[in-house]
């Protein structure tokens, strides 16, 4: 009985093997029924796969995410680093753009006045040895910079070279309380002395008691002997208010400088001039006011209703 059962099982196995080999042969011979069977199976499976994908894909992704968590952390670290670098580059780029703008304006001013200048980058603000208001520049004696040279920005006077080393120099800013510069009023040619107050406002005292001064007057630097420490004709500031105190012998005024002394990036040191005095040619042009549109409204009274 067992032998009979075994032979039947063997026969079953052989027939099943032959059937499978028959299927393989048919498929290899390119019978379209086989390909169609798979195609039909694919069509039947598709709705199940779509449903499974809809339900299960978040879980499937979760497993994948766990597997890739190390890589994700590494990628995040790399991207964070790249982001930091890009932010630094952007900040640097913005700084460079600002410096270029300042450089262009200072060279424009120097070119207009036909000054020969050495451009310099502001390295540091503040006092190096005491409480004076100074800036440190990246040029020094090696670039031909000497003491008492005039320092300008694109808008006007900045200060005077106070001391130099081979590759750097210290500028006394015009806001320094010890700073004094001889100025003239552009229109009236009245002369006065401008003094630093340690802030962004200055005191002006006219030399002649008969001279007049008014709000909005533009002040230009008067020259010194050999253009040191001041080159003539450099815009200094604009009169904000006039003090008309009875007790004062001469008139005085409060002045705002043209140069924003707290935002200096690039300046220029005047090494020589080709023109003795550029006179009033360097006065900054007033901004052109854009016309304000006006709206006219006509109102017609409505008759009263009884």
């Amino acid at each position, binding site marked *: 009985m067992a032998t009979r059962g075994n032979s039947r099982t063997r026969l079953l196995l052989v027939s*099943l093997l032959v*059937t499978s*080999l028959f*299927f393989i042969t048919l498929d290899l011979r390119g019978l379209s029924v086989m390909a169609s*069977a798979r195609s039909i199976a694919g069509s039947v499976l598709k709705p*199940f796969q779509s449903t*499974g*994908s809809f339900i299960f894909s978040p879980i499937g992704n979760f497993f994948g995410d766990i597997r890739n968590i190390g890589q994700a952390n590494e990628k995040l670290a790399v991207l964070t680093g790249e982001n930091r670098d890009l932010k630094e580059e952007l900040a640097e780029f913005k700084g460079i753009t600002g410096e270029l703008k300042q450089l262009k304006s200072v060279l424009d001013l120097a070119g207009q006045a036909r000054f020969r200048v050495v451009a310099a980058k502001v390295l540091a603000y503040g006092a190096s040895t005491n409480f004076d208001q100074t800036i440190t520049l990246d040029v020094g004696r090696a670039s031909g910079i000497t003491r008492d040279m005039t320092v300008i920005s694109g808008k006007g006077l900045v200060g005077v070279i106070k001391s130099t080393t081979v590759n750097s120099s210290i500028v006394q800013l015009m806001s320094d309380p010890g700073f004094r510069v001889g100025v003239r009023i552009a229109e009236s040619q009245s002369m006065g002395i401008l003094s630093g107050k340690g802030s962004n406002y200055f005191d002006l005292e006219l030399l002649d008691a008969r001279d007049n001064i008014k709000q909005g007057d533009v002040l230009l630097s008067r020259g010194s002997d050999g253009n040191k420490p001041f080159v003539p004709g450099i815009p200094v500031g604009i009169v904000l208010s006039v003090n008309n105190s009875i007790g004062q012998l001469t008139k005085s005024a409060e002045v705002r400088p043209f140069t924003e002394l707290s935002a200096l990036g690039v300046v220029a040191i005047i090494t020589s001039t080709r023109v003795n005095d550029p006179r009033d040619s360097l006065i900054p042009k007033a901004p052109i006011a854009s016309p304000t549109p006006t709206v006219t409204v006509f109102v017609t009274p409505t008759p009263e209703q009884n």
Partner: protein
Amino acid sequence: MSSTKTAITISFFISIFLLQESLINQIDFFLGGFSLYLALLFSWMVNEERSGIFLSAFIGGLLLDFTPTLDTPVGLWTFTLLLIAYAISRFQDELGDLASKPITAAMYLVAATSLSASLYLVISGILGNDIPPVTIVLRELIGNSLWTLLFSPIYFPLVYRLKERLFSEQVRL
């Protein structure tokens, strides 16, 4: 194998095939994929009589051959699984009752799935199909073995009990 048993076997395999194709294949398993279908197929074969093992292999292989993504000839999986089924039938007595030997059961499942996958690949190569690089094959085999081993304490007792419950009436008769 009776017609009822064959119908139950076909239904079970179709269900597992759908589960594999619609859900398990969605999971991005570590190393390689996990063939729940093969693992359950070999779990189903345990404690079957020889003809039952062959018929299960034939039905299971034929279903697997209709996987739409396969580019091997239809019948290849059937042929491969029949060869493995023959090997299982030869060692059935040595394996004994796997329900009481979980480690042996796990080893049996790992060996059966790995061997069937390897044999399928070899025959596929003989028939002229492209064989993937060795590293990929090894990774897939190791991955599949790992998951088969890890999940075997869950699915093997389940299949065993399900089968016992389904066929208890027949056993009594």
